[in-house]
């Protein structure tokens, strides 16, 4: 469609720019607030430009203990979040790609039964099964450990289903060619299926990493030890710090820090992600 109507162009651009501003304004506010002293956000007018406390605020956040969040430095919480998010992401991808491989490429009794059992767990997110899961984790002695944070969140019906759908589009002749080329089941998986799933894995990695990073309820339940707190929990604790006024400049700073890893993941993987969407390698 070739159109040349300057007014329309102006209008559409105005709408787009407005949308961008609308989305970015809260982020801007947090960024600005995190560079001011404690009182700045309680006074009117709220500052819209950087203050002079950035260095002090962020170094206190990252290395110093935050009494409002249980005396744990945010750096530590970030590390905990990172370990949890990576554990969940890698675990989910590993488990679901293997499950999908088994379901698509092997004939075993009750194959479809197992598939539907996995599928049905879509109806059982953490929130629904939280009490029995907590019970199991307690009995396994996994409270206050990375294992307790990660393992119950690893099974993923969605990812299994996605990989299954992808595997079903891989031509049978490729499997047959590999069989003639003397590739056993594991060889085929490593040498052919896994490289072909590269873009799918990248897309899932982005989605699952953000899912893991944003976990709140489950970490809140299984950790009582401050050294295992995650950053999302930390923000929440700072907001509800009892009698005192909320320390908005620290809260905003923590929020800014908590944004960084998901942004890095998205930026680093978006190339592969988009590639996976636009080009089929089959």
């Amino acid at each position, binding site marked *: 469609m070739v159109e040349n109507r300057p007014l329309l162009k102006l209008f559409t651009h105005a709408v787009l720019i407005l949308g961008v501003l609308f989305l970015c304004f809260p982020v801007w506010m947090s960024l600005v607030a995190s560079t001011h002293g404690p009182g700045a956000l309680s006074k009117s007018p709220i500052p819209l430009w950087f203050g002079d406390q950035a260095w002090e605020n962020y170094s206190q956040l990252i290395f110093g203990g935050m009494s409002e969040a249980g005396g744990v430095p945010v750096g530590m919480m970030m590390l905990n979040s990172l370990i949890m998010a990576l554990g969940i992401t890698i675990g989910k991808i590993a488990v679901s790609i293997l499950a999908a491989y088994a379901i698509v490429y092997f004939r075993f009794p009750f194959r479809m039964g197992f598939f539907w059992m996995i599928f049905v767990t879509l109806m059982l997110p953490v929130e629904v099964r939280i009490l029995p899961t907590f019970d199991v984790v307690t009995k396994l002695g996994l409270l206050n450990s990375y294992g307790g944070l990660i393992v119950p969140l690893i099974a993923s019906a969605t990812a299994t289903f996605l990989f299954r759908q992808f595997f079903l589009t891989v*031509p049978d*002749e*490729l499997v*047959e*060619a*590999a*069989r*003639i*080329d*003397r*590739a056993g089941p594991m*060889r085929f998986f490593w*040498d*052919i299926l896994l*490289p*072909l799933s*590269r873009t799918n894995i990248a897309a899932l990695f982005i989605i699952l990493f953000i899912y893991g990073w944003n976990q709140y309820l489950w970490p809140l339940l299984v950790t009582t030890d401050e050294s295992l707190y995650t950053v999302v929990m930390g923000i929440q604790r700072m907001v509800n710090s009892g009698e005192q006024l909320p320390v908005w400049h620290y809260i905003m700073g923590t929020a800014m820090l908590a944004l960084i890893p998901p942004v890095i993941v998205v930026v680093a993987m978006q190339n592969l992600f988009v590639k996976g969407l636009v080009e089929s*390698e*089959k």
Partner: protein
Amino acid sequence: MATLEIKSLGKTYPGNVVAAEGIDIAIEDGELVVLVGPSGCGKSTILRMIAGLETITTGDLFIAGKRVNDHEPGERDIAMVFQNYALYPHMTVRGNMAYGLRNEGQPKAEIERRIAEAARTLRLEDYLDRKPRQLSGGQRQRVAMGRAIVREPRIFLFDEPLSNLDAKLRTQLRAELKALHRRLGATFVYVTHDQVEAMSLADRIVLMNAGQVEQIGTPLDLYLRPASRFVADFIGSPNMNVFEGVLDGEARALTLSGGGSIRFADPLPAAPGARVALGIRPEHLHPGDEGPGRMELTVTFIEQLGADTVVHGTLGNGREPLAVRLDGVQMREAGASLPLICSPEHIHLFDADTGRRLN
């Protein structure tokens, strides 16, 4: 290099669907055998059973005298070329060719040597570091052949390898394939639904129909002495003209079911009064007024192919279609009458009910 023996081979799919039954084929060392037939006739199933991609329900399969029914595809010392190439999309051409060899545990130098040789044979030297998606269809199929060659298998299997290519490329690759067979001297088993491909490539053709072998023979055997009406119809283009009718008391004249009759000088080799199907190839009919086997064609339309002309028309009262192939460029008006004769040695006679050959 090896012989391949198929003994009363059969395949039944779940639900009692019989894909092939009682297949007996003995393939000599270094022979190029083409399995041909219409789609669904079981030719691909047989090839896949030879490859080991499909389990064998009944019968035995011997490669170089050894029974291999229960061997994995990788252990049968075969290589296969697929219709849609089945190249590994994430590997380079070199990687595609090397993959099977690496799995066999061949030393690096040997892999390099074989790839270099195959690339030279197939003129792929400039493309070794490209990915399959950067290649054209013909190049991809050459890579697939390269992947087969480097493995130096006893038997090459081809499953309609040229069907995805355009006509010109198909002819070119067909010639290359024939040359490759001559150079390697290996046993080739080739599946196609294209009778021209079968005729031009094969040392021997196995023509299949509905899961069974109709005829095994050299291309000329099948052309000159088709064992059944099905074979006669399948081989040759344009198709053989076949008329059904009843012989007279002397077996000299055939009364066509579509009306009219054809008279011959000598009795036909069939019981007088029998119901038969008479076949004549379009290229064996010649314009002429005098002589036995005379018939009168009413032209409906003509196809000008340059080298020859195919005249389509009807016999008798217009219910028996007939095609004639004439040399060179010939003009005929629609509705015109064209008298034809056919010499008796070009007549094929089939039983009207069973379709088996009578003469």
